[in-house]
């Protein structure tokens, strides 16, 4: 009791010397560093949440649609064919939670925050130095949003989580290594060897990088004592992949040291930009491993203080700046995801609302998806030119050649019931970039409509092993035993109606989806199905081909007696009748106000602009506000569009 009191008294004395004396004699130190890690963790979490859950929710939903995780051992076996594949497996597991983007983002942020604190531990980044631990996870944040259209060409399974989980595990390993390091030399060397083997098996290239970091740890402090660990690390890094190559029959020797590193390559393009975050990650880890960070107290207003505060600002600013730069925020890119999802879920009007909200010129993909929705709602004849039909190519930051065959074609082909083409592109794309929830959903519907029930059962069985598409699969499953349900399904009966009225032939789309559909439907004549006939007329109108238009127009009139003629069909008929006089249109009951009078004013205005010496392009621009919603404007001024 007495002893305790005495100690307490001494402590109090130490902490509370005479206040006046302290102010004068004790120097002021930079304080507050204790709370910084927590503050930074919260700030980073908020920023990451904003960038991902708020700005990129549509993209992340699409990411999980293009990914796959099956609760089945065969899926695990299928993936475990390379070092680092465990991360791909765990990455795929976590990616599925982007189905609820907020949940997926929260999981990702949780991994990052754990990684952040492990990094602090691993590299002893206490207090003010803890800002440096934000850099690795900052690089990973950039990697999430940087890929743009590479989403469709991404061969890196589990991409959105795999590097993050791998980094977390490797930071834990470095921390443990630090603990081992101080035990004895042999324990340290043993840890390097063991981690090179285990880390490489589990996390691939990052395991090797971590082994090097272990070898480099503290080299600036005591270079001589680090020679043996560094040598051990280097030997392991060289030898372990060479040995592994003998056991993995699906890994190129050239890739052995980079296995697991996300790579974005196609036949003609080797993208470097999506690689930047990972290059940054390696550099940051090596620098953190090489340098040692002082824990001494730093005087306020000293040069070191300014440097340390500057470091905080530079690190925080660079993370924000890099992420804002890495964020692929092209409006059309995001709109495509939203429209695609709406169509996949049969929310046709939502898809059209999204199309209407596009601020500038949309991509051809958006226009194709729009036409799918209009076709479904039976509104194409009245609305297809009410939307902006001018288009721009998809925005890419490198020479990536985006083709619709590799992006949305399976869904578009499915909706036009070109089932073999939908199946073909699903399979081709999946062979190249991996099967996904999206591909299985399309393959299921194709097989059901085509009457391939055993095949559909196969795809349904697979989807039933997913977490989020099990319910979707169970909705379609009863159709396997009772095909009448297909006819009763609003979604599939529409596709089935086309399918029944198609004839078979040998053909190819040559990878040009839009041109194929335009040529196929505008050249098809069918009087047995009103639905198919309307579609052939819509495509004939879009083809601007007078010869194709008239027979389909009159067939439409014949099949729809007493019904009002959709406005764009009237516009086309009135224009062609006046242009070529092949068909006597004087007896056709055109809408006086919306067609006859409006066409007269259209002509009058365009003639006046021409007389003013304006170019066709200028005339088109000037007339767009008043007549951009007509077939006439589309016919004369919507030109030079290139599909892809």
């Amino acid at each position: 009791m007495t002893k305790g009191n005495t100690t307490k008294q001494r402590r109090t004395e130490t902490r509370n010397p005479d206040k006046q004396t302290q102010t004068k004699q004790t120097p002021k130190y930079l304080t507050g560093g204790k709370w910084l890690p927590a503050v930074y963790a919260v700030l980073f979490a908020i920023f990451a949440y904003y960038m991902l859950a708020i700005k990129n929710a549509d993209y992340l939903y699409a990411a999980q649609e293009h990914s796959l995780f099956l609760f089945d051992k065969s899926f695990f076996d299928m993936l475990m064919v390379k070092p680092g594949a465990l991360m791909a497996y765990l990455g795929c597991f976590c990616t599925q939670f982007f189905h609820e983007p907020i949940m997926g983002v929260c999981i990702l942020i949780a991994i990052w925050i754990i990684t952040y604190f492990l990094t602090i531990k691993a590299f002893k980044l206490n207090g003010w130095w803890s800002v440096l631990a934000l850099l690795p996870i900052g690089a990973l944040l950039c990697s999430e949003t940087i890929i743009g259209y590479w989403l469709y060409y991404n061969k890196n399974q589990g991409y959105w989580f795999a590097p993050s989980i791998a980094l977390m595990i490797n930071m834990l390993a470095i921390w443990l290594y630090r603990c081992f390091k101080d035990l004895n030399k042999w324990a340290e060397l043993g840890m390097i060897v063991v981690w090179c083997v285990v880390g490489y098996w589990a996390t691939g290239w990052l395991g090797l990088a971590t082994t090097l970091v272990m070898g480099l740890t503290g080299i600036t402090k005591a270079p001589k004592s680090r020679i043996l660990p560094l040598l051990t690390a280097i030997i392991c890094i060289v030898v372990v992949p060479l040995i592994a190559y003998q056991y993995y029959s699906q890994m190129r020797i050239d890739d052995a040291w980079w296995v697991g590193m996300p790579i974005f390559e196609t036949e003609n393009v080797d993208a470097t930009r999506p690689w930047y975050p990972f290059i940054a990650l390696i550099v940051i880890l090596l620098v953190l491993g090489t340098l040692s960070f002082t824990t001494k107290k730093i005087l306020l207003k000293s040069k070191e203080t300014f440097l340390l505060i500057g470091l905080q600002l530079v690190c925080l600013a660079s993370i924000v700046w890099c992420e804002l730069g890495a964020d692929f925020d092209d409006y059309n890119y995001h709109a495509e995801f939203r429209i695609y999802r709406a169509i996949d879920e049969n929310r046709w009007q939502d898809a059209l609302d999204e199309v209407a909200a596009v601020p500038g010129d949309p991509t051809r993909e958006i226009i194709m998806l729009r036409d799918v929705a209009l076709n479904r709602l039976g509104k194409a004849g009245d609305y297809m030119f009410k939307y902006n039909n001018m288009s721009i190519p998809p925005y890419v930051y490198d020479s990536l050649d985006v083709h619709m065959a590799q992006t949305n074609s399976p869904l578009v082909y499915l909706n036009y019931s070109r089932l073999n083409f939908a199946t073909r592109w699903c399979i081709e794309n999946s062979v190249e970039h991996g099967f996904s929830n999206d591909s299985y959903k399309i393959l299921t519907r194709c097989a059901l409509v085509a009457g391939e029930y055993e095949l559909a059962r196969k795809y349904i069985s697979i989807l039933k092993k997913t977490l989020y598409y099990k319910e979707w699969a169970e909705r379609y499953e009863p159709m396997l035993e009772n095909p009448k349900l297909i006819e009763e399904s609003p979604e599939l009966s529409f596709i089935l109606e086309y399918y029944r009225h198609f004839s078979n032939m040998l053909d190819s789309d040559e990878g040009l989806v839009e041109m194929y559909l335009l040529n196929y439907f505008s050249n098809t004549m069918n009087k047995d199905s009103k639905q198919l006939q309307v579609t052939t007329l819509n495509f004939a109108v879009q083809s601007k081909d007078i010869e194709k238009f008239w027979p389909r127009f009159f067939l439409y009139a014949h099949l729809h007696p007493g019904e009002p003629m959709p406005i764009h069909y009237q516009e086309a008929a009135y224009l062609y009748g006046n242009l070529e006089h092949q068909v006597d249109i004087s007896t056709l009951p055109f809408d006086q106000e919306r067609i006859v009078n409006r066409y007269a004013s259209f002509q009058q205005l365009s003639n006046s602009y021409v007389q003013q010496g304006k170019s066709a392009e200028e005339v088109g621009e000037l007339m767009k506000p008043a007549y951009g919603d007509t077939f006439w404007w589309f016919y004369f001024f919507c030109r030079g569009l290139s599909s892809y």
Partner: protein
Amino acid sequence: MMQHTKSVLIVVVLTIVLIACGRPTVPDSYQTESRPPKVMPDYTDVTVPANICPLNFRVYEPGKQVAVRISVGDLQYTYGDGMKVLIDENEWSTLLEKAKGGNMKVEVFVNEGNQWKAYQPFSIHVAKEDIDPYISYRLIQPSYVAYGQLAIAQRNLTTYDETDIYNNALVITPETGQCINCHSYQNYRTDHMMFHMREGLPGTMIVEGNQLKKVDLKTPEIISAGVYPAWHPTQNLIAFSTNLIGQSFHTKDIAKVEVQDKESDLILYDVTKDEVFTVSNDSNELETFPTWSADGNTLYYCSAHFEYENDSLKDAEIINDYRNLHYNIYARDFNQQTHEFGERRLIYDAASENKSATLPRVSPDGKYMVFSLGNFGCFHVWHAEADIWLLNLETLEAQNLEALNSERSDSYPSFSSNGRWIMTASRRDDNNYTRPYIAYFDAQGTCHKAFELPQRDPEFYTLFLRSFNRPEFMTEPVGITPEQFAAEAKKDARKVKYKTAPND
């Protein structure tokens, strides 16, 4: 205290072990169903060899738990893991040994709710003759132009072990995809074997003993490099077809794709001398699918007669006429000393019946030929009506091997080295993914019901999205490693020389 803890631990461990090793009990009371159960793969009343791995299956009947009793005489074992039947390999061997030349009885009981149902028992017949211990196949997604994840794999039939012979992942890059195909062996042995690589790092990989070489079989005199191969049974010679292959897509038909030869000829490659010469190149004939008789004195092949009207419209003509291409089977005598070929003679006239015969293979005893017969064309893997037929080479009478066939495509037949087993690449499961089916072919020339290649997980085929292409029997595994093949693949292909045919 310590003693007590130890005892508890032992009890817990033993309980876990017992639960893990527990067998389902066959119920004493049950309702009876007068039909056999629906099981996948369908192993009801199949005939299997005595050296096959366990025939694990899943029961597709309403219920959550199955109890299956497999018995041979008084020897019996019970199995059941949910609705799956996973058979212990050692017990299976014992059952096979005892049932050799006889039958196993399989009784299936399913628990639905609290009620057990007993289905009509079925038999698994066990033949006296073994099967070759290995088969190999190409694992390929049923894609059309993309070929990522392609492998030629070998499977031990006595176990479930499967390993890659060669995997294109060892060499492909995004810039250079690589197609691999047409693995072939001399007389079921793997010390003389080959396969092709196309697109990236192209060439034909030849194995001669422990030696590897990659050759380029294309010369200016022939229309393509070698395609469909046939090793001569005794000599270091390979007969190849050379083919200009095209594919078109059906817009509606569930066959999906039509693969056609625009032109095709036959060549012979001398492996030792690296020389090729033309065997047959009639411009009005599409010769393909060579195969040797067991004694090596006859070369069989298929050929369709087709006359182009306009050379500049060949593609359009052959596509438009795709339903009128009918292949017959022909034979030409072969002199093993001079390498001269005799005149062709018609062996099977499919065209006269508006049919098309492809992929002939001769039995090791030389008495029979099996081939795939469809309505038209040469690529029967996409033709649902295609069946395997048997031709008696003495009487030239043909018959449909109904026990082996299905309503879907059955193609690429082959005999085992003892001639008692016939394997086919069948799409009967779902019309899209090709699976190996094996049937017993007895000494009287009767074919028995085929069984699907067994897998450890009975649901394997549901989830596995690759086709088993060109299944071939082998008497031994391939000795060259995939890495050795990959190293050779990266080398430049050796050009072969063209020489005039001995007949000319």
